[in-house]
């Protein structure tokens, strides 16, 4: 029975209507009553009395009216239910929006404000009811100056059509308090995909900046404090290694060597942390002079040969003849190349590492190519971020700080250059540094 109903009235069945609520069923029923009446009048074998016919028609009609009114009332009930659900949904979303820890503005395509949540009111020192629907422009900005940096740029309808989300921008607002806000703009579409407007999300980064500064200060102080015990350990272990404090068994010597290695690694980590804090506090000092990049590379390759040999890798240089001189801070550029080559060694388990240097289009280019674990697209995007470490990189080398590339990218930028990476997962990576030539940075 249920199956027949589903087959005959799929629309009603799909919407969960019972046969009594289904207009189709009512229609069929009315049809059947009509046919019954017609059949009765034709085949009853005698003239049907008019009062009999009227009674029959009244009977049929009353059942039809009964069904129709049941239909209508259940339809009304459903509409009320859907309306309540919608209202609940709307309230739920409104509560979520108002409770968001980020400010949120909803704007029409013409950049008129349609909604301001509580946090946005706080951040911008405005009241939703004061600004709803107002066109942007001088009048609005004179009354609500904090809206100027927020609404200065609104996407055009064409831009909204082409992109769902736009690059976040940092803005400064002075009122009601001095704040740095990161504004993200995103288009809003309805179920049919038509653009209804867009949102602007306001994230207060002032606190983050303050915290960042505190963190830098903390790192800098601790790193300085750490240097003393670390250097003490280094020297004391050296005394032991050299047998200055008496002979040791082979096993003891082995342990001391391991301790020494670990300690040196800690020293390197602390130096990384210090370097990063210096970059952040803008305290990194540079001494520019004439550099011969080929000398830096050749010296490094010589220094790192033992590390390379220990891993059965090969490390070679491919240097163009007569490389032009570079205006650089030699110590820092050495750090850049060293960092890239050491990374290549660290994240390559077999194969080779090649360091290339050549000039092209008035640029000096240094490339470090390896046959290591490589990077996927996500890792490539994040690799230069502070503290970021790829998952496989962490597995291979649990100890890194994720600061090396961040640090050297800053150094390269200070030289007016760029640092980029080309890589394929499992095949290897090529890090590429470009320096502008004939520039004094």
């Amino acid at each position, binding site marked *: 029975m249920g199956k027949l109903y589903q087959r005959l009235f799929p629309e009603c069945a799909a919407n969960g209507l019972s046969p009594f609520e289904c207009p189709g069923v009512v229609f069929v029923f009315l049809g059947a009553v009509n046919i019954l009446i017609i059949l009765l009048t034709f085949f009853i074998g005698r003239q049907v009395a008019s009062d009999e016919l009227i009674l029959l028609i009244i009977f049929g009609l009353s059942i039809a009216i009964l069904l129709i009114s049941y239909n209508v009332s259940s339809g009304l009930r459903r509409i009320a239910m859907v309306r309540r659900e919608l209202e609940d949904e709307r309230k739920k979303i409104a509560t979520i929006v108002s409770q968001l820890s980020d400010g949120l503005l909803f704007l029409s395509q013409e950049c008129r404000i349609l909604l301001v949540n509580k946090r946005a009111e706080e951040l911008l020192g405005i009241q939703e009811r004061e600004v709803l629907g107002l066109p942007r422009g001088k009048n609005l900005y004179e009354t609500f100056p904090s809206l100027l940096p927020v609404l200065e740029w609104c996407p055009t309808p064409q831009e909204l059509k082409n992109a769902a989300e736009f690059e976040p921008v940092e803005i400064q607002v002075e009122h009601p308090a001095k704040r740095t806000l990161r504004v993200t703009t995103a288009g809003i579409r309805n179920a049919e995909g038509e653009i209804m407007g867009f949102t602007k999300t306001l994230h207060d980064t002032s606190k983050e900046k303050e915290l960042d500064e505190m963190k830098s200060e903390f790192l800098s102080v601790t790193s*300085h404090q750490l*240097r*003393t*015990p*670390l*250097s*003490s*350990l*280094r*020297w*004391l272990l*050296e*005394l032991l290694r050299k047998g*200055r*404090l008496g002979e040791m068994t082979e096993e003891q010597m082995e342990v001391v060597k391991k301790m020494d290695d670990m300690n040196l690694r800690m*020293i390197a980590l*602390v*130096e990384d942390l*210090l370097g990063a804090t210096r970059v952040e506090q803008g*305290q990194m*000092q540079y*001494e520019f002079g004439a550099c011969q990049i080929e000398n830096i590379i050749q010296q490094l390759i010589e220094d790192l040969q033992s590390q390379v040999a220990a891993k059965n890798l090969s490390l070679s240089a491919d240097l163009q003849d007569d490389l032009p001189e570079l205006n650089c801070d030699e110590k820092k550029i050495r750090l850049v190349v060293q960092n890239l080559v050491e990374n290549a060694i660290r994240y390559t388990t077999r194969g080779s590492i090649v360091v290339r240097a050549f000039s092209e289009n008035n640029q000096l280019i240094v490339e470090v190519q390896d046959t290591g674990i490589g990077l996927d697209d996500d890792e490539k995007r994040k690799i230069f971020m502070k503290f970021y470490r790829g998952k496989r990189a962490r597995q291979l080398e649990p100890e890194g700080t994720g600061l090396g590339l961040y640090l050297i990218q800053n150094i390269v930028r200070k030289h007016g250059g760029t640092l980029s990476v080309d890589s394929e997962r499992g095949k290897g990576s090529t890090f590429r540094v470009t320096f502008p030539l004939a520039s004094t940075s």
Partner: protein
Amino acid sequence: MAEDSSTTKKRVLVIEDESALLFALKAELSHEGYSVDAALSGEEGINKAITGMPDIIVLDLMLPEMSGFDVMERLNADEHTKNIPVLVVSNLADTEHVERGKKMGAVDYLVKTEHSLEKITELLKKAIEEHV
């Protein structure tokens, strides 16, 4: 090396407040054939410099009460001690400190974590050859 007596027992004064570092420096330098005297503070260091007239001073900068820079200033101001070469061995690695140290006459400025004892000794030997 110790056996190489061409370094006729040069006298080194180490001014360093961290006992572990002092112990390591003393042990290594003595082994390398130097006669080592130690001071744990700036004041003590200045007194020992004046009375002992060492051939060279190894100076830490972050000392209690009187900083290594103050010590250098006092040594420079004294007729007797102003010519004793000073080798700064410190954990302050910022350019401004390095420059200040060199400007005040340090023959070299070494950052502790960056160098092994062996390297420090080698640079000390070089400084003695050049300045004593």
